[in-house]
Each structure stands twice: as C-alpha cells, then as structure tokens.
C-alpha cells in the first residue's frame, strides 16, 4: 500500500510555544492511524495544519503523492481531507440532509435538490453501516448519531482521509463500540483515518499504527499490535528527568485528608469519579499519577468545593466537608494550586496585590469590618513577591501581564502563605521553564517539611516519581493501585495508568472483542 498522506518536518510556532517541532507523519491508504499524546502535545495543532486552519512555518505535506499546500478547510475538503471536530458543527434546527449539503453548490443551480442528496446520504449510510436518517432533525439525534452525521458530511464531500479529533470523549462506551465498528468498515473500504486520542485502550483497540507525540515532537511510530499499553503510556508521559530532587525522609503524621468512595460527574454529565478513595497524611506528598482525563481535574474540583459530588465523604481533619462551599474548604485549611492558573487561579484584570488576597479578602489584617486596608495588602503582596521571587516591576501591575512561571509562583505564594494544613497542587509545573519548575519543587518540599499534607496531581510521571512519598494511580475515576515511592516500578505504574490491573484482564482486549 502506498501512503496517502505524508507530512515531513512540520513545524509550527506560537508566541512562546513550539507547538509542532519537525513532525513526520505517514498514513497508509485504508489505515487507521492513531495520534496519541497528552493535552498540549501538539496533536490538534498538527491536524489543524493539515485541515488548513493553521499555516505551517516549515515542512512539506504530500497527499496522494502530490505536494499540497492547504490554506483553508475549504481547500482541504476539495482535496479529499475531512475532519470531525470535538465540537460538532451542526445546526440543530436543520435536518441531516440540510446540514450535509450546507455550503455545497446545488447541481440544479438556485434550486435545492434535497431529494437527490437524501438518496445519496442514505446510500453512504448503508454502505458503511452508519444508520443515519437523512430526514431527521439534528436536535432529535443523540450525540453519537450527530457524530455520525459529521462523518457522513465528510464522506459526502468525498473525503479520502478522515480526521477524528478525540471522537470518543463525548460518547458512552456503547456508542464508542459502535463508532469503532463504523471506523473499521470505513477503513476496509479504503478510507484512511487519523484517530486523535489520549486514551490508551481505545488506541490499542482500533488502530493499525500509532504515532506518539510529546511536547510537540514525535516520540515514535509503532505498529499497534506489536506494542503494549504500558509502553505507550511510558512514551506519552516520559518527560526526560531534568531535575534531581533532594528529598529528606518524610515526617509522616496523622491523616489530614481522607477521601472515601467519592463519586462525581464531569461537565458532560458522565461519571468522572467512580468511588475514589485516598488518604493524605501530614508531612507527606501523595502523588496521583495517571493519563490526562481520568478524573484528575474533577477530583481537584470536588476537593475544593468547586464541583458537587454525587456521593462519598471528604474528611478534612476529621470533619466531613463534602459538597460544602469553596469558602468552607479555605477556612478549613485546604489550599490549592489549581490546574488552570489563568482561568481559576487568578484574576487577569486584578493587580498582583488584589490577587494575593483572593480567599482572604474578608480577613484581618487585609479587611476590618469590611473595609480594606491597602497598606497591609500592598505590604503583604510585596513580601510575597520578594519571598517567592516573582519577577515584576511592582505589585500594582495587572496579573495578565505576568509570565506563566511568575504567575504560578504568585499563586503558590498566596496559597501557602495563608493558614493551611492541606495543599492540593494540580499540574503545578505545566508549561513552566526549568528554573520555575525547580522553584515549585523546592517550595512543595519545604511545605512537606512544615507538616502540610500534600496531594500532588500530575500527568508528568517523572514529577510524581521524584516528589512523592506515596504514589497512587488514577484510572477512569478510581485509584487502581498505590505504592510507596521506594517500591515504585515504572513499568507497573505504566500498566496501571493504562487500566491494566493485576487481577483484571486487559481492558483493551475486552474492548477489541466487543468491537470486532
């Protein structure tokens, strides 16, 4: 088989980020090729370049043997490249047929020929087992069916290569299995498919070959049947060890944070936490390892009162705070460095001084009887800026003008400088340079020496390995394994991250059986 697509040396820079760094990718005709990587690894950027949404800065693209330059999605479609986005581009009040022919020229000039189009849609639907009713209104369809409408839309426009961006993130397991059946049928009849995902078991179940991306570079392209989930996991998360952390022995105290059988839903209403339990003691760091999207963000949100749990208990120093307000958690001594420092951790339009009192803006000495004491606030802000080495001309500038590393230091400073016994740090070093990472590590360890109970949630396996006293692995909303740091074996963690537990059979194999 000849490659239908060949991307060579693709490079794309955004201000401050090298999103794609000389990426090579080859897709054979009739192949299902998985593009695997963490969020931010560069998968979506690469596909947006191929689909004409971004312009590449270096590199070449060959499609069906000819060099191409895609400057718009319109051009991509006319070449035979189709894309199904994570968020569907359908108009709910239109029928399936209307949605599919939207933007196409009618063969009969000004007169729409929906009958003929509907006929063709029905044929396509039958040919690939899509089961799409051309007369149905989109709002009547389930999410899974809407996705199929998107697939038909691409096929109707003559797609030879179909890009699916995280297609299963919105699907139930049943719908996922059906989608996999459709993808196989498409591939068998000659359509090539690029399947973007960060879920290992799905990649194992559906793809012929897998290309793993990390930090904008290709780690490797492997034949899926010759690899294992743990090998893939290792490739995805294995950031080179850039820092050797000196970790003094832990002074482990009583448990400060106890989570029991916690359940919660994600934003799409699907289960994100499925009976999760853990314990963090004073003076230790419990690291949560896992592939992104296995409930880490939801866990942090439930543990700070930002998300409602459907059941379970959260004992903070013995008191159940489950489903209490964020203010209650703050007052109980739970500090948190959130995953999203710009959206959640800080207020861009506020000055640094205003940002450092977020959460203690009602408390003395910053406020007395509801009146702010600006002298105290500015003095405090200046102290934190100095102690945490935040590079800024003054405490009066707005938070939005700080670099990521400096903003993270400011948030860390705020959280550990108020009374607290528990610190939850979510992806505390994502996107930071080495210097800032080292600073954050140093501060987290200092917190540990002070006797704080620290829950470190990170998808950087090496970060978890080098900082934690105990390591717990999260998979599909549950802790599937826990071990002391000195007993940790990377291969075993890799397997657990991939959902393979010692006592259960390989999840991806069951999936393969059900789908095939």
């Amino acid at each position, binding site marked *: 088989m000849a490659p239908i697509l060949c991307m060579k040396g693709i490079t794309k820079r955004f201000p401050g980020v090298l999103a794609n760094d000389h990426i090579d990718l080859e897709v054979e005709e009739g192949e299902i090729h998985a593009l695997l990587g963490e969020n931010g690894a560069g998968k979506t950027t690469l596909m947006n370049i191929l689909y004409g949404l971004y312009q590449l800065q270096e590199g070449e693209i060959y499609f069906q043997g000819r060099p191409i330059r895609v400057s718009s999605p319109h051009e991509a479609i006319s070449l035979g490249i189709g894309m199904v986005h994570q968020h569907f581009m359908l108009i709910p009040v239109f029928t399936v047929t209307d949605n599919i022919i939207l933007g196409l020229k009618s063969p009969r000039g000004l007169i729409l020929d929906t009958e003929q189009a509907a006929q063709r849609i029905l044929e396509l639907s039958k040919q690939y087992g899509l089961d799409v009713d051309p007369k149905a209104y989109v709002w009547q369809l389930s999410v899974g069916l809407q996705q199929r409408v998107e697939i038909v839309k691409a096929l109707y426009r003559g797609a030879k290569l179909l890009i699916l961006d995280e297609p299963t993130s919105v699907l139930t397991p049943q719908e996922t299995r059906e989608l996999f059946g459709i993808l196989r049928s498409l591939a068998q009849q000659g359509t090539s498919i690029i399947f973007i995902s960060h879920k290992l078991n799905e990649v194992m179940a559906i793809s012929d070959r897998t290309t793993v991306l990390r930090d904008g570079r290709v780690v490797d392209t492997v034949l899926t049947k010759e690899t294992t989930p743990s090998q893939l996991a290792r490739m995805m998360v294995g950031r080179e060890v850039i820092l050797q952390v000196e970790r003094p022995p832990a002074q482990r105290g009583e448990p400060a944070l106890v989570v029991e059988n916690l359940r919660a839903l994600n934003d799409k209403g699907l289960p994100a936490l499925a009976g999760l339990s853990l314990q963090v003691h004073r003076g230790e760091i419990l690291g949560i390892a896992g592939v992104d999207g296995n409930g880490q963000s939801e866990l942090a949100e439930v543990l700070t009162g930002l998300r409602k749990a459907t059941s379970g208990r959260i004992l903070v120093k013995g008191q159940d705070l489950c489903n209490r307000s964020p203010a209650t958690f*703050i007052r109980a001594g739970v500090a948190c460095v959130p995953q999203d420092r710009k959206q959640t951790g800080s207020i861009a339009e506020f000055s640094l001084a205003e940002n450092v*009192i977020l959460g203690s803006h009602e408390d003395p000495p910053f406020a007395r009887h509801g009146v*702010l004491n600006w002298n105290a606030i500015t003095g405090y802000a200046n102290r934190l800026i100095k102690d945490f080495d935040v590079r800024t001309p003054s405490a009066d500038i707005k938070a939005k003008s700080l670099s990521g590393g400096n903003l993270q230091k400011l948030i860390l400073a705020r959280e550990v400088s108020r009374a607290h016994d528990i610190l939850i740090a979510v992806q505390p070093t994502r996107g930071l340079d080495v210097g800032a990472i080292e600073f954050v590590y140093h501060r987290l360890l200092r917190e540990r020496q002070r006797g704080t109970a620290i829950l470190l949630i990170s998808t950087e396996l090496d970060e978890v390995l080098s900082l934690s006293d105990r390591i717990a692995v999260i998979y599909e909303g549950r802790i599937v394994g826990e071990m002391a740091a000195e007993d940790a074996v990377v291969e075993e963690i890799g397997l657990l991250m991939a959902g393979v537990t010692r006592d259960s059979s390989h999840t991806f194999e069951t999936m393969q059986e059900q789908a095939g």
Partner: protein
Amino acid sequence: MTRQLFEKRQQPHGTFANILLIFLSILLALIVGAGLIAMAGVGPIEAYRALFYGAFGRVYGLVDTLVKGTPLLLAGLGLAIAFKASVWNVGAEGQIYMGALAAVWVGLNVSGVPTWIHLPLALLAGAIGGGLWALIPGLLKAYLKVNEVIVSLMLNYIAILFVSWLVHGPMEEPGGFMPQTPRVAKTAQLPLLFPPTRLHAGVLVALGATLLVYFMLFHTSLGYRIRAVGANPKAARFGGIEVERSIVLVMFLSGTLAGLAGANEVLGIHYRLLDGISPGYGFTAMVVALLGKLHPLGVVAASYLFASLTVGADMMQKIVHVPIALSRVIQGLVVLCVLGTDILLMYDFVPLRRSRQEPAGESVGEET
C-alpha cells in the same frame, strides 16, 4: 509589505492617556457634529456657542444642567456597579419609577414628623423600592439562570404602566383634573439650595452617593467581591466568593441607586407622582455608565456632560434653529467616539514611538 502604523501594546496605556483620549474623542465627535450642523445650514461655531451658552452661560442653564444630570448620575452609578459585576441590569428605568412610587408613598402617608426624619425616610423608601424591584431579575438570574437582560427590560414596562395606573386611579388627587397624586408633605421635600432657582439638595445626595460608591467599590471587601465576580467568576468562586449571593446583592444595590434617582425627581422637582416622571433617564444612564468607564468619577463627568448637551440643545434650537434631534445625534457621536477609540489604548502609534526612542525626540507632544 505595508508599513504598520499601529502595534499592539503589552500593557494598555495609563490613566493620563485614557483621560486625554476621552477629551480628544469628544472633540472629534463635536467636529463631526459640526459637519452635520453645517449641512443643516447653520454655522457650526455659532451653533456650538449657543449650545455652550445654553448649558453653562446663564444661571438658569447651569442649574438646569445640574438638575437634569443628577438622576442620570444616581442611576448611572447603580448601573456602573452592576456592569462592573458583569450583571446586565437594563431595568433602571423601571427601578426609577418604583423608587419614585415608594418615596411618594412615604411623603404622602407619613405626617407629623420633622424634615430631618421624614426626608431621609422618604429617600430611603425610594432606594428600597428600586432595590426590591431589581431583586426580581437578580434572584432569577442567580438561582434559576434566567437572563437578567430580558427580565429587567420587561419589568420596565410593568413598572411604568403600574405607576400610570396608580396616578389615574387609586392614588389620583381627589378632585383633581390631572393624572397625578397630591403633593407630598413639605417635610418630605428636598430643600431648594438657591431659591428661586430649581437647584435642590438632590445634587448633594448624588455627589454623596458617588463618594460612597467609590469607597465601596475600591476600599471594601464587598467592592472587592463585586469586582472579582465581574472580572472572573470562576476565580472568584475558587477564592471562596459566593457568586450567586453577590449577583443578588449587586442587583439590589444597583436598583437602590436607580430608586434614589426616582425619589430625587419626585421629592426635588415634581413633589408628587405623575405619568412620565423620567424621560428615559434609566436608559440614558446605561450610556452614561459606559461612557464613564464604570468608574464613579467618570460617571459624574459623563452624566453632567450629557445633561449639558441636552440643556444646551434647547438653546441651540432657540437661537440658531438647529433641530433638537441633531443634539441627540451629537450625543450619539460622543458615545461612539469615546467607546470606539478605546481600542487605541491597546496600541502604540508606531511613528510616534520610533521618534520617542531617539534622544532628540523625547518630547512626545511635538510630534503631533
């Protein structure tokens, strides 16, 4: 490649540039307006002289500007608070009417108390009347996620027509011919500051409210919460701020100030409730709040600027026969120019900056 004239700045320009730009924008609006006046067959300079004379040139005009600007200021302050919290209260007009109603009710039905009790009580009633009316969209938004724009807008008509029904029926002056209530007690009236001019103590109430709102927004933890919720509700929630409660509170405060504007009109000018006590102050106040950049001091400037344009337009019509409609056009131009040139604060004018970097061209002013 074409040479770029403007380049995006890392940090927007500071306060001084901001204020300078506002003045230049107003000037720009007046220049464009001059063109329109000329097209209407009148000499622009002559017309503007009449406008200026009308608004500031005589005691009567000056007083009128202050009297007309006061309700705009009060309602504008309330809207500035709401908009700062990203709560889109467009119901100030209705809140003005409900405030006026409550104030008049106290003015009519409480008697035998001295002014220093009766007047504050009537003002307070007006504030609470407006505040309670604003609570309806506030509560619906906070706890049922109902769009506050639609609810507060619709409540305007309900309030206006409700007041109209009252003055035509239940509250109509016995034996009177006009659809209006009896006069409120002398003790509930805002005293005149310089009789016989119409200037009443309401202007002092409004200026006092300005200082209070300024202090509240920037020097209290309540103001901090309001600004945090407006700037980033997600981070505010993370920081322990109860976003829903803040929204309700903000709506109430916003309505309170609009209600005070209503009380100001009935206790300071008409001394009674009647149809059409507000010629759309609640809507103009939205423009005033935006024009004042949601800053209390900016709202003061914007409200009296707008009032002066309205008052001056009368004189412009009388002396040089420029249609009043044109003055509305000029008001619109002012808003358009001030808000439209805002984007310039985010950019550097490249030729200017280049020369600034050279040692000889240190003085920026020379370059223009």
